[in-house]
């Protein structure tokens, strides 16, 4: 079906309008980070870099970023290990309850974040009697990060099949050598992509974090949320938001370099 010229133009207009709507709010945050007026009257009358200077010196924001990076890295390492193990088990073996396991892996992200959040909160506090803190935060984040690693690795394993590994074994390599020289190199980019997604997911998470981090630990999203409603902090929050918007280009760039293909969203 060849579309008529007006129909094509109408579709193009819809696409451009849609993209404009997607990027306009992000642009507004970026521009407002230079807006001299602390209440962000629009359009901005005067520009300044004062807010960026203040944000860089902001102790709360800096320590929150550091907490988020640490938690994200630890959760990613755990998720990489567990997600890869689960993917191997499900792809290479047929066993009773296999479907149940694959459902179980997806569950933490399929259920609303608030359900996972209060379930873990309840388990930590009343069942296990652990005080909420950094450790419980990492455990919670790892739980919902497993699925993204799992999805990436199992997709790769499916595509590869087992013939190369069989060839390696036939040629006399033991299991470990085969993994080191054959399986791992073929999985590397899938692991990197999965790890990247897991870290991004953890870095941005707020709902599960609210229920599992306790009062002492402040991740970056928690810090942003706590300062969002304070008028005198608004310009600093705006600068932190701008920095995050600019940084969001990095994973997209890496993902393009890694896979040469566009990954299908965050899940």
């Amino acid at each position, binding site marked *: *079906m*060849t*579309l008529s010229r007006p129909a094509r133009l109408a*579709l*193009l207009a*819809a*696409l451009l309008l*849609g*993209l404009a709507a*997607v*990027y*306009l*709010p*992000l642009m*507004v*945050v970026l521009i407002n980070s230079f807006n001299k007026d602390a209440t*962000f*009257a*629009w359009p901005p009358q005067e520009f300044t870099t004062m807010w960026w200077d203040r944000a860089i010196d902001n102790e709360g924001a800096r320590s929150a970023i550091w907490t988020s990076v640490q938690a994200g890295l630890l959760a990613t390492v755990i998720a990489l290990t*567990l997600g890869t*193990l*689960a993917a191997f*088990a499900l792809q290479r*073996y047929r*066993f009773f309850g296999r479907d149940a*396991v694959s459902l*179980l*892996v997806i*569950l*933490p992200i399929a*259920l*609303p974040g*608030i*359900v996972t959040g*209060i*379930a*873990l909160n*309840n*388990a930590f506090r*009343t*069942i296990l009697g652990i005080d909420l803190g950094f450790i419980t935060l990492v*455990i919670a984040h790892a*739980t919902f990060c497993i699925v993204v690693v799992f999805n990436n690795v199992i997709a790769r394993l499916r595509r590869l099949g087992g013939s190369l590994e069989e060839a390696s074994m036939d040629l006399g390599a033991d299991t470990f050598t085969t993994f080191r020289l054959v399986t791992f190199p073929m999985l590397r980019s899938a692991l990197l992509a999965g790890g990247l997604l897991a870290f*991004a997911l953890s870095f*941005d998470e*707020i*709902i599960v974090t609210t229920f599992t981090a306790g009062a002492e630990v402040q991740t970056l999203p928690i810090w*942003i949320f706590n300062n*969002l409603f304070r008028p005198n902090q608004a310009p600093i*929050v*705006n600068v932190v*938001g701008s920095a*995050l*918007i600019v940084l*969001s*280009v990095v*994973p*997209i760039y890496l993902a393009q370099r890694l896979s040469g293909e*566009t990954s*299908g969203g965050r899940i």
Partner: protein
Amino acid sequence: MRLVGLLSAPFFWLGIAYLAALAALFVAAFWTADSFTGDVVRSWTLDNFRTLLTEDVYRTITIRTISVALLVTVVDAIIAFPMAYYMAKVASPSLQKLLVIAVLTPLWASYLVKAYAWRIMFSDGGVVDWMFGPFGLGTPGYGLAATIVTLAYLWLPFMILPIYAGLDRLPDSLLEASSDLGAKPTMTFRTVILPMAFPAVIAGSIFTFSLSLGDYIAVKIVGGTNQLLGNVVYNNIGAANNLPFAAAMATIPVVIMLIYLAVVRRTGALESL
């Protein structure tokens, strides 16, 4: 033997720790909290569910939450379909790739920053006021309308990508066959494209609907004093310190989601996720 080795660690983590936590939460929904101390009283009762079903305020909040989630889904579908259609069927392959990246990039920008961006947009004298002022319209202020716009904005890529993938799979030859057989474009759209792309739209709606059901942060940022299901759960964990009631409340979005999944299962949407 090797299978046991592979599965034991993930199984211990997810199977034992996570599943047990979920089960414990569900069990707690049948307990009550002491109204003075907030301690959980472990005696079986259906009081929490009775309160949920009989008190008007919870019914109102449930209906409001479902309406918001449905509206967000409809708005997203209407905006996403033409965008996805252009990407899949009109754009050249290189432009296609670029457009997918353009749609994906905002997903990596922080959720909170995007919700915050709309708080700024909707503020008095903000961008919305400035844009629509010349037409005699102003910002609707912080409320349900702002919440729906913000949620629709947040989940839009989750709708575009499945529809794009679905339309991309739809062979051009089918569309040509339809027009060769004399169908006008509107008829081809109605009888060929729409039925075949429908599962993809439903697949997208699973994301937009479930994500909207569980959200309580966006409504806090742009929703004024309005409450959704998630806010009630949150308040019962925090200020009210009534975990059993929060647990009972949290089963509502899960049950709604299960019903929704059961309904859309027949469209074949789950296979196109």
